[in-house]
């Protein structure tokens, strides 16, 4: 109880409250604008937290995350373009409602379902995190290595179509993180005598470079080639749904929130999968006229994906807090933020710093409420922001990139590193190699190597030690099964694509 009270007092500090407000606004803006993502928002916000206390920093990161998850649905409904991939399923019925003249209700349903999903997943998170963390106390380096390897194998799920390219991306991330001083032997690795590289490539620098810089280039390209879309946006007043609507759909909201939470807890999956699975389930469960309404402005068609994609947030934080394994790219950034502020997620956090754990729970709840209120009463402000031409936003983001990376160590070396990684990120974009697995490699690589080498040292270089733990062996089997399933699914898709391509007229080369 004392820990909870301490956490509540930390939450009531003005810095924490202001941080939640700023993070929520930034998250909603980045989430709402197509092309910007909440992962980018987190990468940009993280360096901005260096001047504030760790408690406020955590509040800002969490609120940016939650705001970003919800913000994508604003544009999904209003202009039929999802601000984030997670909101793609909401477009179907959300935009249809707007076309029917029910824009206010559409937004109200989104806001209510988002808040429901977030709070539901928070409740699950509170119990699950504690349970998993208690189990993880008994984990040694072998178990931790196998867990991280399991997390890395789920790169396949982040590969956006080509597993080989996803694996290449993940490997590149792992390679980058070996640069610096080896933690175990103290040997310099590929630093070439440069002092700034002794600490390795900074995670925040890499993330800003990978996500923000390619976006800047792409925006400029779209502007020069006249590909920037102009959206017609009218002012809207949010209309919150009646209590009866909530009561009638309580079962659906709960069910889809469970879907979102479970999917969020599995590293490598995320909002888009949860949203579409939930939409599909809602459609299957609907009967009669309600079923016919799907695709034409169905209330359930908006509630289901929104509750699920926001429930992902709590689910993704379960492995993050209890094991230190991020559930997706966004939580990977949050993990980086926690580490930078001296907070090491994992079982030890629950014994050594329980008030901080409670602070995370409380901040999650407060951020959900703040985001809900901002969207309900501030939608006009966000619509005005959405009308700003993307090319002008690009200028602001460029400044944030440079200031943000400079602020990490007050070093221009980091700025230039960000630019080099940004060029590399753009080349990845051109090569259609996804950036998200690179982030996973960057975040998990050091832990993977450290736990492997620690296990080897403790076992006096016996490789068989990795097969002595039942949990580790189970995870290896799961890795093989999961990768096999992904490869099979990928092969099926490619085969279908090949059949389609063969049916097109062949041109002599």
């Amino acid at each position: 109880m004392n820990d909870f009270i301490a956490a509540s007092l930390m939450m009531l500090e003005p810095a924490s409250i202001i941080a939640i407000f700023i993070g929520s606004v930034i998250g909603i803006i980045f989430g709402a604008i197509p092309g910007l993502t909440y992962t980018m928002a987190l990468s940009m916000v993280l360096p901005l937290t260096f001047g504030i206390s760790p408690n406020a920093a955590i509040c800002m990161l969490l609120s940016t995350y939650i705001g970003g998850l919800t913000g994508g649905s604003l544009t999904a409904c209003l202009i039929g373009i999802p601000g984030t991939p997670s909101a793609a399923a909401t477009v179907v019925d959300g935009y249809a409602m707007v076309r029917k003249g029910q824009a206010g209700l559409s937004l109200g349903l989104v806001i209510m379902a988002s808040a429901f999903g977030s709070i539901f997943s928070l409740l699950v998170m509170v119990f699950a995190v504690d349970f998993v963390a208690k189990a993880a106390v008994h984990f040694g380096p072998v178990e931790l290595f196998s867990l991280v390897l399991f997390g890395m194998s789920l790169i396949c799920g982040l590969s956006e179509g080509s597993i080989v390219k996803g694996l290449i991306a993940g490997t590149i991330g792992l390679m980058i993180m070996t640069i610096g001083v080896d933690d175990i032997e103290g040997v310099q690795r590929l630093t070439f005598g440069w002092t700034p590289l002794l600490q390795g490539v900074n995670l925040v620098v890499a993330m800003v470079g990978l996500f923000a810089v390619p976006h800047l280039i792409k925006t400029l390209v779209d502007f020069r080639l006249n590909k920037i879309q102009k959206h017609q946006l009218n002012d809207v007043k949010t209309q919150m749904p009646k209590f009866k609507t909530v009561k009638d759909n309580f079962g659906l909201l709960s069910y889809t929130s469970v879907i979102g939470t479970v999917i969020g807890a599995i590293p490598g999956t995320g909002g888009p999968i949860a949203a579409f699975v939930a939409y599909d389930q809602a459609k299957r469960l609907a009967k009669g006229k309600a079923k016919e309404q799907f695709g034409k402005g169905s209330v359930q068609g908006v509630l289901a994906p929104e509750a699920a994609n926001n429930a992902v947030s709590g689910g993704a934080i379960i492995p993050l807090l209890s094991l230190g394994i991020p559930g997706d790219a966004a939580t990977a950034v949050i993990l980086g933020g926690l580490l930078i502020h001296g907070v090491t997620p994992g079982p030890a956090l629950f014994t050594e710093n329980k008030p901080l754990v409670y602070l995370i729970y409380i901040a999650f709840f407060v951020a959900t409420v703040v985001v809900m209120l901002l969207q309900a009463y501030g939608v006009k402000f966000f619509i005005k922001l959405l009308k700003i031409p993307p090319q002008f936003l690009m200028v602001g983001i460029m400044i944030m990139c440079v200031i943000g990376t400079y602020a990490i160590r007050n070093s221009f070396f980091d700025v230039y590193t960000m630019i080099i990684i940004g060029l590399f990120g753009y080349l990845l974009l051109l090569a259609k190699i996804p950036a998200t697995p690179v982030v996973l490699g960057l975040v998990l690589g050091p832990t993977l190597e450290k736990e492997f080498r620690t296990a080897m040292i403790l076992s006096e270089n016996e490789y068989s030690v990795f097969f002595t733990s039942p949990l580790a062996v189970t995870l290896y089997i799961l890795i093989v099964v999961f990768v096999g399933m992904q490869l099979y699914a990928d092969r099926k898709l490619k085969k279908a694509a090949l059949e389609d391509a063969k049916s097109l007229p062949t041109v002599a080369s």
Partner: protein
Amino acid sequence: MDNAKHEKWIGLGLLIFSLVWYGLVTNFIEVPSSVEEGPDSRTFPLFFGFLLGAFSLLLIARSIIQGSVTKKAPTSDEPRENFWAEFRCASWMLGCLVFYGYIMSLFGFMLATLVSVLLILVGALKVYRPKQLIAITLGISIGTYLIFGKLLGIYLPLGQLLDIGM
């Protein structure tokens, strides 16, 4: 260039990168003499380089197997024009970032931001109306100073050559 050829070149580029990486790791990472057996500081960098090489070969092999089942070939020079436009834009943006960082180190945050924003607005975004130029330049520069420097307490660099004290 069709998809298979594109992937072949990507695979080749990555294979070369993995070979260069192997060379750098073996030549620039020293293994302490106290380490007798088992994984050392070179093990994981070498292993990851090997993995990258293997995946690159896989990509190349896949592109060869898929062959050149071509989609409809482009009938205009649009892809080539787009390539040069993208190349110019990428060079511009990266150049702006380098320029911004460099002059910030010399002249500090405020001057560097004013000059860089003006440069992008005129050079890249073709904004020429004086009122719009001044409003956007001052708005972004002062706005970011107030938000980052004052509200968030982030240290904004002072210039080595010139410092206007903001």
